[in-house]
């Protein structure tokens, strides 16, 4: 039978090639035109420790990493114990025969390392695995060979050697799988996209987006799962007029980029929840003194030090209202690796446009998964520049109730960027009239960020689903399933959590009920929607893991049933 979808989970110890195998399979598949997405978990310790990665290969765009595991590759016994039950019925288990043996009827052994060694290339173990997996779904060998060619042809003298040994390893894997007699079916041929693609992780997409948008100043402090953005910037944000640096804390990070933003550079930092908490006061200052900057929050499990290697969507309230006083941060929450790129560009554009801080909320699950996305055509991704003051001295930088041109040091127009309430020149004052003017000025600028960018589907339904951020994928899959079952429910989604597109807000207000699946306890976005007078109710999960599509389908049905009940009552 023909399969459109192939889900493999690789489980074992850190260092056993769990991640490389999964990413290898994903790469091999996308090379030939499949869509692929991985989902990675991380051991909390540095070396070793139980870990697993899942790869989903599909003929269509993938929305989630899939909850139906077709094949489990168990690199050790503990991995088998932990994950065996996740394998769908009719699924197959490949175990590392070099490490252990067992008798599960669904399983066959593969002497991964022995076979690799036999090719004279110890590092080809993951190719053995990929070969075996390909066999199980009858993926043609030439597909794999193209990938090996593309991956290892680097103009070294021993390229041929390496390539042939890797191909040999795959063949051995294939052979063993064939001998095992197990077959899952035939993976349908891919529909290769006719456009260029990128294969990358969410954090890489954010870094690229920020770079395209013109970020020239980056200061950060290491913290999982945001560290990779800092390391990327330190390697790539180099050259004249560019600065990327590891500072001594998140307080230094936020205040340093604030100084840079004031001085005229597009500046950014990235952190996780604990860093957001430490940036509270600095974010309030950026709001008060009207200084453009971007903070990326790659969310992990909270509160406090929380769950550094798990995924969650629980920082929303902390990001919207990070500080004391009347503040409300613009928030962009991408829902896919692709949106991580466009979200980052938009965050930088927003900061420059309204002259203030913007928070880009990503999540562990997107930060670390690899996914294929269409390569953005940069010529079509507009980049905005801040409105700067060009006149002479004696300028009143804070005059009026709306945005005004921002002077840059070195040029005329000197003023004081002031964290105390101030008059039009930026000098401290306590006049009630000034506090009124400046407060309204700061909030009025948010209007500049309002647009109509949101997704909607089946808009006439009385009940609608509205996920946010990284839950978009699984919720969309659940939505499609519900619609196929003929259930009348609507779909709404936007990256722009604040300010929310006004049209979207009005559409949502007209609904009887808006169901919000989100990965936190309080139902934070559902609460915010009620701020907006939308009748919302959350579906919450706080396990440190993403939603499962099947769970979502069930829970949405339950809520709809209850709602009908009440309506009747």
């Amino acid at each position: 039978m023909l399969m459109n979808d192939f889900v493999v989970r690789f489980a074992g110890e850190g260092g056993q090639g769990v991640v490389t195998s999964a990413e290898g399979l994903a790469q091999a598949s996308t090379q030939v035109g499949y869509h692929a997405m991985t989902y990675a978990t991380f051991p909390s310790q540095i070396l070793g420790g139980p870990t697993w990665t899942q790869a989903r290969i599909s003929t269509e765009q993938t929305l989630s990493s899939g909850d139906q595991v077709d094949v489990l590759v168990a690199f050790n016994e503990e991995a088998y114990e932990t994950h065996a039950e996740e394998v769908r019925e009719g699924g197959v288990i490949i175990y590392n025969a070099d490490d252990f043996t067992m008798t599960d009827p669904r399983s066959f052994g593969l002497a991964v390392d022995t076979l690799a060694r036999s090719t004279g290339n110890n590092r080809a173990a993951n190719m053995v695995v990929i070969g075996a997996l390909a066999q199980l779904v009858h993926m043609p060998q030439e597909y794999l060979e193209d990938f090996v060619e593309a991956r290892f042809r680097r103009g070294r003298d021993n390229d041929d050697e390496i390539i042939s040994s890797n191909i040999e390893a795959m063949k051995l894997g294939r052979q063993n799988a064939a001998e095992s007699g197990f077959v899952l079916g035939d993976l349908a041929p891919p529909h290769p996209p006719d456009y260029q693609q990128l294969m990358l992780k969410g954090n890489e997409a954010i870094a690229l987006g920020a770079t395209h948008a013109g970020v020239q100043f980056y200061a950060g402090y290491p913290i999982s799962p945001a560290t990779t953005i800092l390391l990327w910037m330190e390697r790539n944000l180099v050259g004249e007029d560019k600065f990327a640096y590891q500072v001594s804390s998140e307080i230094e990070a936020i205040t340093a980029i604030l100084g840079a933003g004031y001085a005229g550079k597009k500046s950014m930092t990235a952190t996780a929840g604990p860093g957001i908490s430490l940036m509270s006061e600095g974010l309030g200052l950026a709001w008060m003194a009207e200084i453009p900057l971007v903070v990326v929050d790659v969310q992990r499990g909270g509160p406090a030090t929380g769950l550094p290697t798990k995924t969650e969507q629980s920082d929303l309230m902390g990001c919207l209202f990070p500080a004391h006083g009347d503040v409300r941060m613009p928030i962009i929450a991408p829902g896919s690796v692709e949106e991580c790129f466009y979200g980052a560009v938009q965050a930088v554009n927003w900061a420059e446009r309204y002259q203030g801080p913007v928070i880009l909320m990503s999540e562990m699950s997107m930060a670390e998964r690899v996914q294929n996305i269409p390569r953005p055509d940069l010529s079509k991704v507009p980049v905005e520049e801040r409105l700067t003051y060009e006149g002479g001295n004696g300028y009143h930088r804070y005059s009026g109730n709306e945005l005004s041109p921002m002077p840059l040091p070195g040029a005329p127009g000197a003023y004081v960027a002031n964290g105390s309430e101030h008059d039009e020149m930026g000098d401290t004052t306590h006049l009630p009239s000034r506090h009124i003017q400046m407060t309204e000025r700061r909030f009025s600028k948010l209007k500049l960020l309002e647009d109509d960018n949101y997704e909607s589907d089946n808009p006439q339904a009385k009940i609608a689903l509205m996920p946010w951020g990284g839950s978009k994928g699984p919720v969309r899959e659940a939505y499609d399933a519900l619609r196929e079952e003929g259930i009348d429910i609507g779909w709404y989604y936007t990256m722009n959590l604040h300010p929310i597109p006004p049209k979207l807000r009005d559409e949502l207000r007209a609904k009887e009920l808006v169901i919000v699946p989100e990965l936190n306890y309080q139902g934070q976005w559902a609460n915010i929607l009620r701020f907006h007078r939308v009748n919302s109710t959350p579906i919450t999960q706080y396990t440190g893991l993403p939603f499962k599509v099947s769970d979502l389908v069930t829970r949405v049905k339950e809520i709809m049933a209850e709602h009908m009940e009440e309506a009747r009552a």
Partner: protein
Amino acid sequence: MSKKNPEYDFKWCPGCGDFGVRRALELSMINRLEETGLPIENNVVVAGIGCSGNLVHLLEGQQPYGIHGIHGRTLPVAMGVKMARPELNVVVVAGDGDFLSIGGEHIAPQAARNVNVTAVIMDNGVYGLTKGQSSPTTEMGTITSSTPFGKIEEDLDPLELYLTLGVSFIASGFSGQPRVLARLINEGMNHDGMSMIHVQSPCVTYNDTFQLIKGNAKEGIAPALWDIPEDHDPSSKQAAYDLVQQGGLPVGVIYKDEARASLEGNMGSIRAKARERSAEQLMDAYSF
């Protein structure tokens, strides 16, 4: 900007030491304009929160750019301004509480980086703006509003701290000598690296040390103030340590390391090694 600005509603107490520091900074910015021809707007004054920080609003004459942000964060803000726009002259003005207590964490890293900013600290050994609590430099035993039975914390020696942390230019001065102070500030501005100008700027309302500093012959009080002798070698760290150990209020340049590269300089060496790529080129690494 006060003179021009009726809405600005803060004034220093008559006789406050900070008046002298303001004068010194005005002079040093004018000197710099004459030396370099760069306009006053080329200066960015990053101010701490305190009576001292209000200096940024009280400057008379042609105005520099300013940032008057939150308590204790002048140094990282200044680093951001400087590394974003190295051509600007960045000056920090802050009090002993702002710089050494809540902001104390930022001195070591900036010194290690040798960020090319000039910090002018107005040390009055007290929290002035909040009306007289003890600060890190308040002498042990002193009774203040927050130490009603006497301070039981050892007081900090800022000059020794700067030396240990590797600040590459360290000077000490007195607010009562605006012209001397201006010269020290200018020397700090001209130094390519982190410069600390630590100034005794008495708080006449909560901790009046004018007499202790200047002495009082009648009452037999010897002045704490003394000029650093010509023959002091500021390039010698040992000499600097010895000088600081002598106590009192030395006036002049204590230490100066001209050999060390500033952060800006070191970034240059990185740029030499690194390969700059456009966003398009960076994407190629992920493209297929």
